[in-house]
């Protein structure tokens, strides 16, 4: 069993986030939203 506390190096969990496809969907939507906001403002 792995310990309940995740004491990984920040670089490790950051790279796991950045290589997660799920992460880039909200990021793309956020960028699209900001572009849209700028164009309608």
């Amino acid at each position, binding site marked *: 069993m792995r310990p309940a506390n995740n004491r990984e190096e920040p670089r490790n969990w950051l790279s796991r986030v950045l290589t997660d496809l799920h992460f880039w969907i909200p990021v793309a939507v956020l960028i699209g939203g900001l572009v849209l906001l700028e164009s*309608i403002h």
Partner: protein
Amino acid sequence: MQSVVTPTNEASARDLSRPRKLQALGILSGFTAGAWLGAAEAPTKLVSVGVSPIVISLIMVTGVFLARWSVPALILGTSSVRADLRRAPHLIIWALLAGCLWAVANTMTIFAIRDIGLSIAFPLWNSNSLLGILWGFIFFNELRQAGWRRWTGVLGGALVMCVGAAFLAIASSTQAPAAHSMRGVWAALGAGILWGTMYIPYRKAYLSGMSPLSFVTFFTFGELGMMTALAIGYLGLLPLWHELKSAQDVLFWLMLGGFIWVIGDLFQQYAAKYVGISRGIPLSNTNQFWGLLWGVFVFGELRGSAASTYMQVIGGSLLMMLGVGAIALSSAASKEQAQWQEAARRESRRYNLAEDFVEARMQGKQVAGEVRPSRTVWDWMLVAVATGVFVFFATMARAPRMSFHGGPAVLLITATLVLLLVCGTTLWQTTRFN
């Protein structure tokens, strides 16, 4: 042969009934969320002075920020937030991202209402529930192996609620469409897409075992940071400061709206956790119905309207109730829940989380040997500071002169508090807010 109930049998019977309990809890949380999110509109209705919409949004988010730290500190203590953070530090990024999405979406709704009016804008951004169903299905195995009856219940219920929302929005609309109609349509659709996508981080957090009370504390940094950046970017620092100063009479009402909104959002988070986003979002979208109840009965918004308007309100409300009923009766069966657990295992593997911890948290339990969080003097200080800020702004607040009916207000406040009491107590008894 006579059946004998042994302690082991009892334990397994409890384990079998727990998913059903959690589903019912999620549905109750979604419904309570709708009531509180709708009630959050009431204090903002008291603000009729000429304050810029972006400033209104910024002040509300400030109230939200204070509530998002003081309420978790009061319920569990910030030690539980720190413990969750150590277990799943990657979720800070997800929470910040969700907060940014919320702030941009909220700003877009302001432009949408300005350009096309509430009647067209609201149903358009309410389509976030349909997008939530899509993301839930694609990324988190929701509605997988659910069968056509549950599919019909959830998708059909969400669609019926969208139609009901359209009726309510048309009835409550007071604005005529302006010249920039396409711009308003894009803004409303954009808000729906941003809000629908915001639930990806929500679900991600709860499949990783994070407590909703911890998630919202980091979410709010994204929310306040993005909203501040937008306000400064669009208005400029000095004009923003002047607007805030000139609006000091109404700051309290807007912050109070933000505080009430946080209570609703917390229940929304529990709904997303226990019934998933495909069911949780449509249920909490009933806030429109509650908002209309406040508007019609407390603030007399539809007084003197045509009979057709009242028919729209009644028809829209019935449709919303029908949709809620269809979704509530389509709770996930054991096959679908097995798919959710598979999605949770995938998250555990990717982010190196202890599977037994994630499993326990998905069941609303603590893992064996986990230390119960406790409140410290810092938590009480946090609560005291937040309370002090609210009291300070309350002393500056002025009660606006407007139509206000006390009787219906007392009834609605009572109903909202009863839901809080029932849902809060059930959450505490079943999960200890885990």
